[in-house]
């Protein structure tokens, strides 16, 4: 059986009294496009750092493609490419030198062809010989992505790669990641732009205060925690009983009617017409990960329950 791309078991990490990771277990299969979501301070970066060996877990095991990140750190690090959250760079070197050095740390010499391709793909060609210091923030982030990819790691982890990045680059970045994913690379990302995760990722883990609070396929999460709704504001008339049953109304007079499919939208509108209600405004809201996220986080805020 193939080893999972990432396997985290009962991992804990404390900083003084703070439990940054509190018994995290998680497994990402090879070839997945996986999102790790959670509010600020949830422990996402700490977990990623533990996988990269930047942070030592107090307890538990972490593996990358079956390699223990502590006992077999050299193999594990060869299999892993991490793009750190913070933009950091070495002001002594140019873009190309930075990438050549990074290749060398992995024992790769003569990696020029792949470096050239990375520069091309990330639109850094024109800046190849510019000093790192002279690059804009978004460009520095691109170099960090290239640094994470110099050794062609089968598992790629991106910690908020799109924070502070313009629309064009964001799209180019995701296109590139999709391609790498299609070529067999496993991609794990964190982001606070939930629509990115919703569109890209097949599975999602949500973290809060150092714990995994939800872990499922994107489809299931959306189905379980969010719904497609028809929102209508009436000019006259009232909601017929058949619709009013599952509907709610807010202070501004918007009725919120859950609908399972597009066909049901038509049925609902037909019923309104039959009931003689005139629709002033209308919109259909698709299920959104943001709603799922808000609900799951709120659930965690609820006072102690049986599992607390």
């Amino acid at each position, binding site marked *: 059986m193939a080893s999972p791309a990432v396997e985290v078991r009962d991992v804990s990490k404390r900083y003084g009294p703070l439990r940054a990771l509190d018994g995290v277990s998680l497994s990402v299969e090879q070839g997945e496009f996986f999102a790790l979501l959670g509010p600020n301070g949830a422990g996402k970066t700490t977990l990623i750092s533990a996988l*990269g*060996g*930047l*942070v*030592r877990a107090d307890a538990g095991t972490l593996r990358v493609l079956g390699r223990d990140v502590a006992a077999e*750190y*050299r*193999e594990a*690090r*060869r299999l*892993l490419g*991490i793009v*750190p959250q*913070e933009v*950091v*760079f*070495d*002001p*002594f*070197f140019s873009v190309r*030198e930075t990438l050549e*050095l*990074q*290749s*060398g*740390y*992995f*024992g*790769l*010499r003569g990696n020029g062809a792949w470096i050239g391709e990375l520069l091309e793909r990330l639109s850094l060609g024109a800046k190849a010989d510019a000093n790192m210091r002279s690059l804009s923030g978004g460009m520095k982030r691109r170099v960090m992505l290239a*640094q994470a990819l110099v050794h062609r790691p089968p598992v790629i982890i991106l910690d908020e790669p799109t924070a502070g990045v313009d629309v064009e680059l964001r799209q180019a970045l995701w296109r590139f990641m999709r391609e790498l994913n299609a070529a067999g690379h496993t991609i794990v990302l964190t982001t606070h732009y939930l629509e990115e995760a919703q569109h890209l990722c097949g599975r999602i883990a949500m973290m809060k205060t150092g714990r995994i609070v939800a872990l499922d396929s994107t489809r299931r999460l959306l189905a379980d925690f969010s719904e497609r709704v028809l929102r209508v504001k009436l000019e006259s008339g009232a909601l017929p009983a058949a619709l009013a049953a599952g509907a709610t109304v807010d202070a501004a007079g918007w009725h919120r009617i859950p609908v399972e499919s597009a066909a049901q939208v038509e049925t609902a509108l037909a019923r309104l017409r039959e009931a003689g209600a005139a629709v002033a405004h209308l919109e259909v809201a698709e299920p959104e990960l943001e709603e799922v996220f808000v609900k799951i986080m709120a659930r965690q805020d609820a006072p102690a329950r049986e599992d607390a």
Partner: protein
Amino acid sequence: MTGGFLTLFEKEVMRFWKVSFQTVAAPVLSALLFLVIFSHALAGRVEAYPGVGYVQFLVPGLAMMSMLQNAFANASSSLIQSKITGNIVFILLAPLTPADLFAAYLAAAMVRAVVVGAGVVLAVAWLVPVPFPNLLWLAAFTVTGAGILGVLGIVAGLWAEKFDQLAAFQNFLILPLTFLAGVFYSVDSLPPFWRAASHLNPFFYAIDGFRYAFFGRADVSPWASLAIASATLCALSWLTLRLLRSGYKLRH
């Protein structure tokens, strides 16, 4: 050791070479200034050793002092800059072993020491006639002296979290130990207490042995100096490798 060692070593050498005006030219200039000032002020002093004038006596000491200080500065400033700017993550994420890190920082520190030391000796040779040194002793004390300070530079760079902590390490430990190691005087000329105290200072042996390479005489037997300097280097290296293996202040 892995292939990554060589790249990290090259990077560390490139790093100081790119700013060689500060990292090589400046220390050579300060050594020259020391030489001019001290030789002028103390020119009337008796010969340090029979047949060796005071100014001549100063040259190897100044060269070694520059080597010691620059070996320390290279390793410590590179590490602390990488830690503070955060770019050390790129090294920590790579499959480099603790021995790779140790050897790369140490070797680069020694390269800088040799470049600076050669610069001092060559620059001074225009002004002061210095005998051609015994190359074996020269190499032995260059390696052990610069090695000890390179390793101390790694320790300080790991330990310090801020530049002022590093400055404290440098000002309260490295600087007094170098100045009190007999750069400017023969330790034999000191009162007994200070002579004994100097003999506890490992830097003294590096300087004394280095001087032996030039004049064929020194305060202590060069074999004893080499043994003590080598033992110090080994002990510090062992400790530093342990620190690196434990992830001390690098992997939290």
